[in-house]
């Protein structure tokens, strides 16, 4: 990755991190970067938020028995 792109990426990430702080999402930088990468790949943001929420709520729900599903 050329330095220009790298710089853009870093700056974007910074901005996003600041926005996320204002909104008090509780995400740290690294998680946010992963999420952004997943969004860019085309995943549904609603789905991602659901994942985040569920996994944060882990203590409430025990690991459910899931039927195996296909990955898109």
């Amino acid at each position, binding site marked *: 990755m050329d330095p220009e792109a790298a710089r853009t990426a870093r700056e974007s990430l910074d901005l996003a991190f600041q926005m996320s702080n204002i*909104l008090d999402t509780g995400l740290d930088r690294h998680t946010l970067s992963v999420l952004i990468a997943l969004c*860019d790949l085309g995943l549904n943001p609603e*789905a991602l938020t659901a994942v985040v929420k569920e996994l944060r709520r882990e203590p409430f729900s025990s690991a459910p028995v899931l039927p195996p599903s296909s990955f898109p």
Partner: protein
Amino acid sequence: MEEEDQQKLTDLVKELILRLLSCKSPNSASQSPSSPHFQASLRYAVRILSSRLTPSVAPDAAAVAESIKRHLAIHGKSSQALTFADLYSKFNSKTGPGSINNKWAVLYLLKIISEDRSLAGNDPNYPSLLPNIECFEAESGDKSRVSREREGGRVGWDKGVLLVSKDPENLRQLAFKEYADLVKEENEVSEELLVRDVLYACQGIDGKYVKYGSIVDGYILSDLVKVPRATRTMVRKLCELGWLFRKVKGYISDSMDRFPGEDVGTVGQAFCAALQDELSEYYKLLAVLESQSMNPIPLVSESASSGNYLTLRRLSVWLAEPLVKMRLMAVLVDKCRVLRGGAMAGAIHLQAQHGDLLVSEFMKRLLTRVCSPLFEMVRSWVLEGELEDIFSEFFIVGQQVKAESLWREGYRLHSGMLPAFISNSLAQRILRTGKSINFLRVCCDDRGWAESAMEAASAAGTTTRRGSLGYGETGALESLINEAAKRIDRHLLDVMYNRYKFKEHCLAIKRYLLLGQGDFVQYLMDIIWPELSEPANTISSFKLAGLLESAIRSSNAQYDDPEILDRLRVKMMPHSAGDRGWDVFSLEYDPRVPLDTIFTESVMVKYLRIFNFLWKLRRVEHALIGAWKAMKPNSITSQAFLKLQRAAKMPLLLTLRKCQVLWNEMNHFLTNLQDYIMFEVLEVSWLNFSHEMEVAKDLDDLLMAHEKYLNSILEKSLLGERSRALHKSLFILFDLILRFRSHADRLYEGINELQTRSGKSSLASRDNKKSGQQRNEGPSKTSSWASDGRKALTQRAGEFLRNMQNDLDSLAKEYTTLLEGFLSQLPVQQHVDLKFLMFRLDFTEFYSRLGVNKC
């Protein structure tokens, strides 16, 4: 590439889960990727990710940013909102390699996570709000206190009003719960079902709860169903649409049923078709609404659920426009229920005069379709003369008549069917154009009008095909009709003048029937005089026809067109006993098709009247001239004068003089009358008529000009309605003149007789020489006289002359009275030309002074 992506995806997901779990419980032991907890979480995550493939909100980064800003502002974090705005603008401006492509997704992500966090953080058991209960704000108003403090209080979902409340005991929450329960209780039927029923009602179908009540004549919610009153009213309002729809649909199906029975015409059909088109639009809208009514409102947060997208309020917004249209259609249906054809088009046109753009557009669309059969009919009528009107919807009606009255009565305007956007004058022109084509086709056997029609169409810019005119193009229609009318009229007049020689025939009628051909009339009078003195039933028309022929041949009339002479013949009117030939004789002219459109029966009758009058005038004139011939100072009279005794001389002189004087008066009267008729009446009228013939633009003009010509002749020659009394006195005068003639004849006969008698009794030789020129009355009579001698002769002469004198005196007196009467009536006549007659007759004011003297 795909594989790479997949791998990256999997890695990232794993990473994410790891981070999240480690965040959660930094102290737990389940950190390795291979722990069962991790695996379970992974599987769960995968499941969630694969279930929501498409987002339900439109991907608009700016909108999301806006909503975030607003959210921040509402919650009192305005400074943070500003910062956020700043950040967002910077964020958005980052484009190019290395930047985030799916900005919207990122923003959305952040928003939802923060919302969820705030929700989850505040109250894990937050009950779901029913967002479609609008009165929620009012309810919560009681329990809130506006304060700037934010001590653990909750914030409401207001849409613009800042409401921060201190509510530690969750009072609001309890209130909401109660309210929700209450609402659920009252609403036996959910809104969803009501909406569906209303949609059914709008198509005319009875739903489960909303049915058509025939008493009330509307779709109502049955009273048994428990719904709050507001909902009930709303349902009622929406079901008006259903009622209107029913009405329109009913009309359409009714008309379709009646159509084979020929009660509904083509215009009615077009109207139904246009209505059905509108209704299909309406169906489309309803179908969309129905599909929408099943969809829930797309909300992204899982914690809140929503009702259906389509509530009664939303429905009323959607249905507002169709309601207006349906109302218009229902009004039209009402108005047009009993109308047909052009009347229907006119009624709809009146409705279309509306200021609202929507209404006028709608009406215009409808009218274009409705009027197309009408315009078709107009086009085919104007260009081809065809009247294809099975259902009698056109404003021109035709009827079967004979060829000669085709022009006058064959077609007429039916103003009931005339739509308002076609003016009366335009309709007249349309009528005339089509009539002309038919006239040409039937009466004149002419085919040339077809080219005129083509020319007209091309000149007007349309074609002769069907369907080239429409409503709203009245200008085009008018120009087409004008062109067609112009050309057809010109063509018709051409045909009339050139092929059928209308002018020549008119002139011929004038020359023969109106006695314009002087030499012919004179000759005819001369040879026919002795014939007509016989009683009517002894006269044979063949003989008269022969006399007519010889009259024609001996005058200039023989050089006339044989076609014209063909048509001239003698007519013997039906006679009763005691009629003389004079009363029954007349000439007639035979106009054939198509000229008999102009010279109809009634017109020929008028000509006959004028002919009779003129003929009588001529007869009287002829009689008077005959008397003049007898009254010439001739040798017989002078001889008689010389021969008679002194005693008889004076009476003779007096009688003769009286006779002369009377003759002069009568002659003066007759000559002037004759001149007046000839010059002031006939010639002047003819001149006017020729001028009008030059400028006539169509057959109607020609007909009117001819009528005017005839009527003016009738009026001026005292044959009109107003001059009846005058006419009577005139005829009495004529009779008087004829009596005078016979008297004069008798007088001169008597003188001749005396002369012959005296001639015989006196020196025979001298008289014989002189009497070579005498008329020999009859030798048989003289024998009885000869013996009487001169005294007896004188006595006889005196007696005779006295008788004659008395007769002449009485005649003269009568004449004078009558003439005076006649002249006194002249000034009071309305017609200005009769004053000219008065002027001629009384040029020296002799008679008026006479009248004055007498008074």
